[in-house]
């Protein structure tokens, strides 16, 4: 798994996730996401380069969305139409929940 953080403008950051997002990487991803939500008003998660994602990491996407909403922040999800991601969402019955 590779993180690539890019500051778009003041207070807006895009985090690009790349490679295999599996339960063994969940703790690291969790840590990075907390930082991201704490430090930014607008958060974009780019999933277009994800090769595999399992339920543990999918849950973190839902958690991020929830935290952003709780903190009145803006949360965007980019690249969720990546087949690896949409397949994982569908296989876990969460495809409509992400919309």
């Amino acid at each position: 798994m590779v993180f690539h953080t890019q500051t778009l403008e003041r207070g807006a950051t895009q985090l690009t996730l790349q490679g295999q997002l599996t339960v063994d990487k969940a703790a690291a991803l969790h840590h990075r996401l907390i930082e991201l939500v704490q430090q930014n008003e607008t958060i974009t998660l780019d999933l277009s380069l994800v090769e595999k994602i399992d339920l543990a990491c999918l849950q973190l996407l839902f958690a991020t969305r929830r935290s952003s909403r709780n903190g009145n922040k803006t949360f965007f999800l980019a690249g969720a139409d990546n087949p690896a991601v949409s397949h994982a969402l569908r296989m876990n019955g969460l495809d409509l929940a992400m919309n």
Partner: protein
Amino acid sequence: MMSSYVELFREEALELLAELEEALIALEENPSLGEPIDRVFRALHTLKGSGAMTGFEQTSSLAHEVESIFELVRSGDLDVTDELISLTLSAHDLLKSSLHAELTKTALDPQLRDVLLDQLYTLAQVALKKQAPPPQEETNSRGNENGPLNSFLVRFRPHASLFLRGIDPALLFRSLSEIGTCLIVGHHHAIPPLEEIDPEECHTNWDLLVVTGEDCNAIRDVFIMVEDDCDLSVHPLNSSLPLHCEVSSADFRSLLSKNVNIPDQELVSLLENNLLPEIMTGEDSLIQRIAEGLPAAKGEAETGKSLRVKSERLDNLVNLIGELVTIQARLGQTVAGRKDATLSTLTEEIERLTWELRDEVLFIRMLPIDATFTRIKRMVRDLSRELGKEIDLLVEGTETELDKTVIERLQDPLLHLLRNAIDHGIERSAERVAAGKSARGTIRISASHSGPKVVISIADDGRGLDPDTILRRAMEQGLVDGHHHLSEREIQQLIFAPGFSTASQITSVSGRGVGMDVVRRAIEGLRGTIEVTSAPNRGTTFTIKLPLTLAIIDGLLVNVGSDQFVMPLSAVEECVELTRAEVARNHGRHLIMLRNELIPYIRLRDFFDCRGAESKIEQVVITSHDGTRIGLVVDKVIGSHQTVIKSVGGTLQEISGFTGATILGDGRAALILDIPGIIADHAAQAHAAVA
């Protein structure tokens, strides 16, 4: 040029039609089984869908009509009868013609279609009238009447520790979708915000709607690994409903999203009483997916198991491998001349890899023989009815694999043998009973592997071959003279002689001038052999032996003068020396004594009129064909040779004695000898000399 999607549909449609035919025959054999009915239905449904998408409207609409008849069969309203199968088989033929007509942009007689559909609908109406139960009975039975499929509500609440056990719920759902069709609804509402979440714990719950032919236990079995790590409940739903009503995943989801914590029984009754009966068709409906053979979550998991490749590409691949084998042989020969250990090791490695690659590629071309056998089943069925004979067909070894080309070219000879067996072999019931046999005749076709060959046998329990009739006819037709005593086996083999026929009357089925010699030549063209054994009143058995592949053979490379030849290694028994002294001892007669057996030999030098210096010690390669052993005298046996067969064209095709050519390691061409042909030629010459 055909556009790629049309070509793709054509291939798919042909496969579906073959599947339809096979399923219909299976259904006829066992009308009580549900599985072939589903297969028929699926094939028709897919044909309808893909046809409509690709613009094959005529074929698609015909498939739709037939499918609607089979809906009645599937719901149990229409019984599987002989008539239904016959009509549906005719519909299959019509679908094939319709496909062809649409591909070639020609017109299909609309009357054919109307007549057939009329017959089918009449059959369906008669059946429906007969079976229509009184109304009150229908109301009573509705609740108990179980369709072939059951539906279940599965509620899966894993404990937080699920991931620590190494369990991925998606894999459980995939297993579940292997036994049926599932709608999976995951509940994410319990997932805490980032600050509170333990990233290594499971916070998701699921409700699933499963439609399956299996029972409750099969569903529980899927979850057996997580039994102790979850709360699981499986509730059977009123099973008759999903067959008549259709539930869409969106409806199921929306119901659950409003009622996440709804108690089980409440949800079950909501599903049974409100959702299932009320919601009818939907694009995403379960039933739609079942009918399309696309389980909700299964589709993706199945991708990648097989790949559709154009057969020309495989042929190209085989040609390329052929070139590679040739170059490799050349490399081997070049390296052998230099004493370089490293180069030799590398060459050996390349040789090993080339052989492995060759075997793999040839293996890709192997297809099971069952498609051919299905056509046979259909033919036997239709023909025995036409001739009013009762025949059981037993088929064994349908999984036996053979090279694609061999399978394609085997079809006609097999059908010819079958036609003969039905027309001439199997007697009418009365005649059979009078002969003390069962009224129904039996034809047994089997295929099996035997070493590097495939053996196919076709056996009937009919009247058998009559040696006297065969001999008399053969003499009348001038195929044998009365001076030679022939063994029973030799007489039986006479049926393969060109022009031979015992049929006293020409029927529409066989005896149309195509004799058994055509069958024999077709089989020999595949480098195979055919033999017949028969006992009067007990039946006839044809045994066909075929090589697994036609593209590359193991050969024996020999040298005569300045020419080189390849003999198929499968025909070679052994090699012995032939000294001039031995030739002198036999006073010039072309015979060699080998372990007390006199074996005639042919000098290839004379046979092919080869030039170049004669060798002092020649070699006799003992070959055998059809039980006849014969020696072929060569100057030198060079060794075994991976032979890539190249066909020879033009004038060379007219010359007997060889079946093809190959390119040798040094770039020269060598002819591949036709051992059976040479033996037959030799016998004919000897016969002429005696006469």
